[in-house]
């Protein structure tokens, strides 16, 4: 069993939980093209999670498959950041979250392309192309909304402020990431911060918006299984059917 399994669980949980939230937009998006686009991004992230879980089950010695991870873990065993578990807000909230998350993912997957774990490097190679598209998509919308109408500018700015407390957590170097970085499998989250902030800042400036100051409060604990209120309800929905029919295959 590999000591960096916990690090990979964090990576996989981030994208699975965000895929679950993004998929909620289907039938709820502002236009049909966007139902499709957000569904597409959800599919990409879901695919990344599905590629990682069985690998984690192999290296941690449990032999767990994707659905063991997705459907059979309690809240305390999930290692995703709070950013991705927050409830769906308005479209500006989603674009603010997608902009930051995708910019983070571009830096992350770029670095993971050099992972000493061949599976991780392989997943990252494919993921990088996807998350670059996600970043483009979010950037396009942030610029349109920031530089659109008065209302959309106000909403987009408010969304940047609401998402702000959830960002620091992406860049915390927890124990698992230090282990993974030492082994050359992973990357220190803190090392990604400057690239992400620079990327987002460019978009925000083009959108005639401004990056908010740091808030007094910030989220923490996701990587240690300490989640925010929405997580339990997300899991109830995600797992209810699977949990209701123990041992069934689908």
């Amino acid at each position, binding site marked *: 069993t590999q000591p960096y399994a916990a690090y990979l669980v964090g990576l996989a949980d981030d994208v*699975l939980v965000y895929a*679950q939230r993004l*998929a*909620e937009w*289907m*039938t*709820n*998006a*502002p*236009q*049909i*093209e*966007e*139902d*499709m686009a957000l*569904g*597409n991004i*959800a*599919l990409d992230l*879901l*695919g990344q*999670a*599905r590629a990682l879980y069985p690998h984690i089950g192999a290296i941690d010695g449990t032999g767990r498959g*994707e*659905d063991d991870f*997705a*459907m059979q873990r309690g809240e305390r065993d999930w290692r995703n950041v709070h950013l991705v578990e927050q409830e769906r807000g*308005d*479209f500006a909230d989603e674009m603010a979250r997608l902009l930051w998350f995708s910019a983070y993912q571009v830096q992350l997957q770029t670095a993971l392309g050099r992972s000493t774990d061949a599976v991780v490097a392989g997943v990252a190679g494919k993921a990088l192309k996807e998350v670059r598209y996600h970043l483009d998509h979010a950037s396009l919308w942030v*610029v*349109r*909304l920031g*530089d*659109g*109408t008065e*209302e*959309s500018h106000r*909403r987009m700015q408010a969304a940047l402020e609401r998402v702000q407390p959830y960002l620091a957590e992406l860049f915390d170097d927890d124990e698992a990431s230090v282990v993974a970085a030492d082994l050359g499998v992973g990357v220190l989250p803190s090392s990604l911060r400057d690239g992400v902030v620079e990327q987002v800042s460019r978009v925000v400036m083009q959108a005639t918006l401004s990056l908010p100051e740091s808030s007094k409060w910030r989220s923490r604990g996701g990587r240690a299984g300490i989640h925010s209120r929405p997580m339990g309800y997300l899991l109830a*929905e*995600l797992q*209810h*059917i*699977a949990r209701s*029919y123990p*041992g*069934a*295959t*689908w």
Partner: protein
Amino acid sequence: DAVGEDFDALIAADQRIEPRDAMPEKYRETLIRQIAQHAHSEIIGMQPEGNWITRAPSLRRKAILIAKVQDEAGHGLYLYSAAETLGVDRAELLDRLHDGRQKYSSIFNYPTLTWADCGAIGWLVDGAAIMNQVPLCRCSYGPYARAMIRVCKEESFHQRQGFEILWTLMRGTPEQQAMAQDAADRWWWPALAMFGPPDTGEAAKGGHTEQSMAWGIKRFSNDDLRQKFVDMMVPQADKLGIVLPDPELRWNEERGHYDFGEIDWDEFWRVLRGDGACNAERIAHRRRAHEDGAWVREAANAYAAKHASTVTATGRESAA
């Protein structure tokens, strides 16, 4: 007149009518109504299955379901585009959907109560849709026919996925088998009603079928398509191990077809008039999404207009 003659000649020669061709106003109106209703059905049809995306029982099924709902959105878009070639725009058609002037397929007013319903929709509803749509690939109106070719290819993929959901359930636990059977029990009759009311024999009078056939929009009667559907599905049900909920269903050697029972047309008309389980919910959901998104669409338009005028003003920002 010249319009009538050219059009009649193209129809007679089984040639495609294209947007640039002159066409009778009634033909245009019939097509707009039909294509729009078809597009609306794809868009509203995202909701019953969309209801299961967050609760799909495995990640694999979740991925397949997201892709399917995405395909439905895509079909809606092709179809709105086809309708737009007839001189209406999508925003106007969506308004007509939202305020009830245009309809969508009544099948989507039935609820999806269990995971097995995602299987039954794929197997039965998409199955019936394909039966209806394959002949439309030869529809006289070119853009509609071409959209249908693309749609049908994906629908038959969806139908196989639905079959496979039920197949897996029928080979699962007793609860899973019961779930699959229950879904088939609830979706079978509404699927048969999807082909529309009887339009042969006595019932042929007064409906749209005759005119639509003459125009090459419709190729088979509702009743013929329904029969073909029943004939196709009975062996598939046998393969699944599902008992179709019709005691009168049996092979008729003489006709070379399956006989089947009477559809509850009272229910059909009630649901069509707006009193089905989900009529209120489907339109309310669609309207809410549309209204919640109004500020986003306005912003996109404002941004595009700003940029267009910038380009005009400076003549050099189009590459930005």
